[in-house]
């Protein structure tokens, strides 16, 4: 048997797990750091608020959280810019990316509460969010199915002569679906300005990675498409943003797609009704020490980028925003029943 000569190279930055180091991160300046922290904290605060509402029975259907994954989510969206034509195709755990892309907390709460003001008008649920104003396209449930459309969107950006990019997300479970393969291969062949962000949070519902795939790193698959593959620490927001920045440069230069595997952990159940019992306690304990927000906060304090006062202000601001948005949504009217039969077809 031949040795496969190696696994895909792990990106230089990815000696995982490690702490955030005080080096220069490509594509970022220190002025970006507090913003990254803000989006991560806004994300967690919003999700915590939804959980409360859920426990009060005010949410219809399931609640899906990105707790523990905020660095991946926020860091990956940060280098992109909807006003440049970039488009975001997020998954259910990517609230952070949506906020970073410009979506307002109101939109989130309206959507989760199925209100008339929700971007899907109550026709789709939970975080299948669409926010056309910010080029955010809501996912369908079928995992990996958004990859081909996201690639097609990216392709259209190229056909139209823009420099825009589309970024899409996939899980360590969803990466086993055929569309992952067809979409990424097609993107590579047409050199679509496309980034696939693989959020490897160790589980797919209750299924651990050894039952999902047998390769070492999912980023190794990049080799089979002839595109750059990165394997990075998904709990270091700076490393995530830096890596996506590189992929963005690669795409904007006309060199096509990249695959980025961010290693992180889903710190809650698949959805809030899932007791998460199948995850060994030690594993959760271990990961709790790598919380992306706590880690980054400690780093910023140590570095002196922020001080306690600034942190407090940030938290106040976030609490205010979340409460405002939630109150707005709670008081907003529900969808008009007549909408049920409308807009199946475009005019």
């Amino acid at each position, binding site marked *: 048997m031949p040795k496969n000569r190696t696994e895909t190279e792990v990106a230089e930055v990815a000696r995982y797990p490690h702490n955030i180091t005080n080096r220069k991160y490509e594509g970022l300046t220190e002025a970006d750091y507090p913003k990254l922290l803000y989006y991560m904290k806004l994300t967690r605060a919003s999700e915590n608020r939804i959980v409360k509402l859920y426990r009060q029975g005010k949410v*219809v259907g399931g609640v899906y959280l990105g707790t523990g994954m905020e660095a991946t989510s926020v860091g990956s969206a940060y280098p992109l810019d909807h006003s440049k034509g970039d488009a975001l195709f997020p998954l259910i755990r990517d609230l952070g990316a949506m906020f970073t892309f410009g979506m307002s907390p109101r939109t989130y709460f309206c959507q989760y509460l199925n209100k008339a003001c929700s971007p899907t008008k109550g026709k789709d*649920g*939970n975080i299948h969010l669409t926010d056309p104003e910010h080029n955010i396209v809501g996912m369908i*449930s*079928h995992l990996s199915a958004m990859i081909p459309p996201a690639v097609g969107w990216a392709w259209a950006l190229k056909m139209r002569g823009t420099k825009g990019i589309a970024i899409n997300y996939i899980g360590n479970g969803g990466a086993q*679906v055929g569309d992952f393969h067809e979409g990424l291969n097609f993107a590579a062949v047409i050199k679509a300005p496309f980034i696939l962000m693989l959020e490897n949070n160790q589980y797919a519902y*209750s*299924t651990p990675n050894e*039952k*999902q795939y047998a390769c070492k790193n999912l980023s190794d698959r990049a080799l089979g498409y002839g595109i750059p593959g990165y394997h990075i620490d998904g709990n270091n927001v700076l490393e995530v943003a830096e890596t996506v920045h590189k992929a963005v440069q690669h795409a904007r230069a006309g060199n096509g797609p990249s695959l980025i595997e961010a290693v992180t952990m889903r710190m809650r159940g698949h959805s809030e009704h899932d007791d998460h019992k199948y995850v060994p306690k030690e594993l959760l304990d271990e990961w709790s020490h790598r919380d992306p927000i706590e880690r980054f906060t400690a780093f910023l304090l140590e570095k002196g980028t922020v001080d306690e006062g600034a942190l407090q202000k940030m938290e106040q601001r976030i609490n205010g925003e979340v409460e405002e948005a939630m109150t707005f949504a709670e008081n907003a009217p529900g969808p008009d029943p007549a909408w049920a039969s409308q807009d199946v077809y475009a005019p």
Partner: protein
Amino acid sequence: MATITYIQAITDALREEMKRDKDVFIMGEDVGIYGGAFRVTQGFLEEFGEERVVDTPLSESAIIGAAAGAAMAGMRPVAEMQFADFITTGFNQVVNICAKMHYRTGYAVPMTIRCPSGGNVHGGPFHSTNPEAWFVHTPGLKVVAPSTPYDAKGLLKAAIRDNNPVLYFEHKYLYRRIKEDVPDDDFIVPIGKGDIKREGRDATIITYGAMVHTALDAAEVLAGEGAEVEVLDLRSLQPYDKDLIIDSVKRCNRVMLLHEDVQTGGLAGEWAAHISQHAFEFLEAPIVRVTSLDTPVPYAPVLEEVFLPNKEKVLTALRELLEY
């Protein structure tokens, strides 16, 4: 005899079949340690081991295709779709591999695909559909959709013992809402046989799945108003009980076709064609269809209510039918 829920009936059937036949095994996403998204196979991993209760990767096409291959090689897989909706990503395996294999090659494909389906659970466009009609329209497949614990158990056993690919649609709304006494001893409900769930003489409602209960509720109301409405539960959708339909129509002369699936191109059409061809002279009123709207399944409860058929909609249409 024990009083069990619809979902328990499914669990019992699976367990009993696995004990009866060592070639039967279970595969699907999260069916092992988690016991399935709806906990149908909870405890099975411990009871039957990893070899026979297989947590698969997130890959519907591989699940269905591998089940088909294993079936051709002599096993009897029962594959679980986490939701029926996800069968669309394994569609080609179902309609081109499973359905056509025996006709082309003589290889039997004895496998069952369990599909938790249906709405009224606020699941939205991708967790609420009733995708059975696509498969009824694919020669080579069998399709069943029980409405009661008894039928759920008997049809699942029949499906597992059948030498063909059988799609088993279990309605999520019924899982824990419907209970009944089910005999303890081994029994099957034959595929292809319908069941009169309520006898009548003034009109027949032909339906299946969750809508059987909606039909029964409506029939009960009308009984109070002096009309006797028959409720025919098809149970099997392919093959379906053509004779029972004709027999009922000949006796009741008025027909409502009721299903939760959307209307255009849906199964009610198939039944209408059968009836209008074979019981034409016995019809005393137009055939009426009551179905969901022709839209994706909306998420918000207030919209889903408009979308779905319910007792009131059935009653309104029934009264019209009876007055015709």
